């Protein structure tokens, strides 16, 4: 419950979710890695069988 509440805290509201501008944040893989360095995005793509396009 604590984990989900933290996720909830970080989540957009339903209204924000309908905001096409707010939810459009196109990034390159490198930009994503800089934005969220705690997660190994390259490895995720490899695990899912996708090509790595930096």
């Amino acid at each position: 419950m604590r984990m989900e509440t933290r996720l909830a805290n970080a989540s957009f509201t339903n209204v924000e979710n309908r905001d096409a501008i707010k939810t459009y944040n196109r990034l390159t893989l490198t930009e994503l890695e800089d934005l969220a360095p705690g997660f190994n995005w390259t490895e995720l793509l490899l695990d899912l069988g996708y090509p790595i396009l930096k």
Partner: protein
Amino acid sequence: MEDITVEQVRRLVEQASNNTSAKDSSLDWKIGQFYRVGMDTDSINRQGIEPLQGELRLIDNMTTAADVQKVSAHLLSYYIVDPFFSFFACTDSKNSKMMIATLYQSGLGLPDRDYYLRTDNESAKTREDYLKFVTRMFVLLGDSSRTPQEMLKRS
């Protein structure tokens, strides 16, 4: 409209599953297999949680953040289960000719953030019921009823 669509899909799926001459791996064969597996509630009930054991073990054996990532990727790719976020291909809303990789928030068992953050009595009751539900799921998955309850107290 939805009624008509559902009815049409049912007819297509039943036709496929009745098509005994469908070649292995053909579309009809795949649809038929999938449908029959889902409809075979006797086998489903007999097998219980057995088919899930491998995945449950993967989850049990996680110790590091890297393990959590590995297992999430596995759940995402095999079952489209998205414990922390969703990841899928979607049309680029600024360029409809392009399909792009899309990340989207996810991971909540209740419908949206408000269910976790609202402080009124009704929402608090919903969260209590949710905890009971999760406890029941753990018990159905083989935990003793004490274990999940103690765990939930700590969570």
